[in-house]
């Protein structure tokens, strides 16, 4: 039974092993993270001072669009799927994912999707330039010809996510080790189960909205064209019906990662496990009924504004439950601050800041002032960068010794954390002030009055980018080092993944483990 991986390139092309596929997802998402980061640096370099210095406005718009699309669909989502592939079977005592061949397929269509999306940069008329939200008619009537490639790329990404989700749900439902009841599953597994259902519910809606665009552009329909009896506002409703659950898709697995790390380094069991499960489910449910808070200024009746405002604010309750649970877990614990813990604690603090600016945006009358300003940019970067990116980074540091069998360099890890922490806050905190003062999003040039905030943001962005290069170096150095990690890696961590040797053998739990 025990056999190692195949040799050569075909190992990666043909593999159905969850660990191989997880690694490929993670490396792919890191490559996309760097690419999206380069686009972000083009934006920040242009905004370093007022006036047009480096890029033309047309290219600037392509950069904001591509940065958003690549980061959301290329960096954050595949990274979470990669972690799910690696960890879920090991956490529930399964030998592999339930549908290993589909697993291979769902990964290998991704590079094609992103090659197609990135390829639009070299096409006539340039890459998509309508923002990552691709509002019609910007993305239909006024779109560059490359929009068709964008549509097909989105279709492929959606297919990949849907297959990944089906696989994760099938694995969790069918392959849990005997005795691993639902309420004994680690929270990372729980949050991914809920996320997978969210994906299955909304990725088809995304596919639907881009299909409607495709028909409007090429086949003369008028879903979003007012002249033909359609309505551009319909686009926004359908898009955000996908888009709002999508932002929770990018944060729920992060909750799971942090809920695994904090108890280990606080040396206490997680506080309020079942309330965490219920809170996650509530957030997922509420995510379907708040979409119109992205479009308060579109012209809704008062009743609609109020309903969406209160529903949105309601989300703060389950989110608050989670934050309090993490704090209660740390309270009176014997805490140590290794790199994964540093990232996790920063996650709790900075994600809360992003949550609070979200509450400010949820107030419909105030949103008329904040709408489409840098305040919104500050808000969603505060939830996505310390939320999704920091938690993924924390997860990588936490499980890397298990994956490759070597301990990472703690000093380098902590340096990475502090550079990233300072860089992140320097980049995004000033955006709150620029936004409150009225600086609009998605502009290549701006009024002199915003110059200082923007210069700070740009310096922070380059610092943050430098920190990620250090991260890459640290990971490669760890894989190549000889500093062996123990099977447990940390002090009494909870979970089945720590019962197998480090590095984790190619096949784990071929026989289901006995649960005490």
């Amino acid at each position, binding site marked *: 039974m025990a056999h190692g991986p195949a040799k050569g390139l075909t190992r990666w092309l043909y593999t159905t092993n969850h660990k191989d596929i997880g690694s490929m997802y993670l490396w792919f998402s890191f490559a996309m993270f760097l690419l999206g980061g380069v686009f972000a640096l083009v934006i920040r370099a242009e905004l370093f001072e007022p006036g047009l210095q480096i890029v033309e406005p047309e290219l600037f718009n392509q950069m904001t669009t591509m940065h958003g699309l690549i980061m959301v669909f290329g960096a954050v989502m595949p990274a979470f799927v990669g972690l799910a592939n690696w960890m879920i079977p090991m956490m529930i005592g399964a030998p592999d994912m*339930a*549908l290993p061949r589909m697993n291979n397929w769902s990964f290998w269509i991704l590079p094609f999707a992103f090659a197609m999306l990135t390829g639009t940069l070299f096409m006539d008329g340039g890459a998509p330039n309508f923002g990552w939200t691709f509002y019609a008619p910007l993305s239909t009537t006024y779109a560059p010809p490359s929009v068709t490639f964008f549509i097909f790329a989105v279709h492929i990404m959606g297919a990949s996510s*849907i297959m990944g*989700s*089906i696989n994760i*749900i*099938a694995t969790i*439902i*069918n392959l849990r080790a005997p005795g691993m009841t639902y309420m004994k599953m680690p929270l990372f597994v729980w949050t991914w189960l809920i996320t997978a259902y969210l994906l*299955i*519910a*909304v*990725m*088809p*809606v995304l*596919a*639907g*909205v881009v*299909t*409607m665009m495709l028909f409007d552009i090429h086949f*003369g329909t008028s*879903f979003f064209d*007012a*002249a*033909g*009896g*359609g*309505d551009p*506002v*319909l686009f926004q*409703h*359908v898009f955000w*019906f*996908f888009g709002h659950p999508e932002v929770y898709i990018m944060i729920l697995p992060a909750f799971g990662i942090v809920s695994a790390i904090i108890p280990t380094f606080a040396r206490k069991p997680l506080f309020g496990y079942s309330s965490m499960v219920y809170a996650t489910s509530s957030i997922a449910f509420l995510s379907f009924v708040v979409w119109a808070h992205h479009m308060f200024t579109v*012209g*809704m*009746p008062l009743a609609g504004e109020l309903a969406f405002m209160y529903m949105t604010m309601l989300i703060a309750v389950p989110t608050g439950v989670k934050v309090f649970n993490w704090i209660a877990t740390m309270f009176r614990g014997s805490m140590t601050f290794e790199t994964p813990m540093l990232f996790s604690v920063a996650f709790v603090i900075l994600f809360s800041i992003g949550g609070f600016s979200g509450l400010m945006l949820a107030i419909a009358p105030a949103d008329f002032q904040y709408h489409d300003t840098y305040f919104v940019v500050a808000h969603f970067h505060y939830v996505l960068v310390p939320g999704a990116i920091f938690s993924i980074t924390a997860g990588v540091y936490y499980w890397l010794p298990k994956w490759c069998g070597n301990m990472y360099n703690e000093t380098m890890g902590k340096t990475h954390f502090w550079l990233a922490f300072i860089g992140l806050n320097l980049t995004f905190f000033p955006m709150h002030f620029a936004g409150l003062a009225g600086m609009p999003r998605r502009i290549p040039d701006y009024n002199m009055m915003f110059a200082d905030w923007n210069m700070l943001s740009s310096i922070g962005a380059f610092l943050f980018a430098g920190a990620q290069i250090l991260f890459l170096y640290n990971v490669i150095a760890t894989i190549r080092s000889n500093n062996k990690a123990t099977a447990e890696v940390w002090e009494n961590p909870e979970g089945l993944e720590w019962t197998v040797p480090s590095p984790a053998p190619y096949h784990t739990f071929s026989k289901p483990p006995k649960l005490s």
Partner: protein
Amino acid sequence: MDANYKVTVKLTILVVGMFVFAIFILPPLYDVFCDITGLNGKTGKQYKAVSAGIDKSRTVKVQFLATNNETMPWHFKPMMSEIRVHPGEEIEVKFYAKNPTKNDMVGQAVPSVIPFKAAEYFHKTECFCFNNQPLKAGESAELPLRFIVDRDVAKTVNTITLSYTMFDITAAKAVSINN
């Protein structure tokens, strides 16, 4: 592996269902919702006049606006900018449109009513916006509109603004003829 097969089939049905929901159910649902609530100022289809009598006790001011969408080159304007009407009375007004270009063109006027809560009480018994408006090069036309402001319109509504945006659909028409 039977269990995995079952899960896969169930979830695939869910995926297909959500896709169908997004394309075939959400847009019509949205239109119905807008028709009922007057959301976005959408006005209804052609209205059959019912003789419910005229409410002489009050008047409502109806203002007319005509705008060209982006590069539309037509001259397009209402022939009177506003009129005071009694709720229940049927009124005819005309809009003027001229195609000053050297090409035959087709326009489509799209109406919108403000305030939204008045939209469902603004009935059009005849409107040029029900069809598209072809104008030959240099041709002009007077476009008729007959409407009734419903007697049940809220007492707080003193002014209704009816705005038309004229879209250039010449290219789209050419496509649909070729198809």
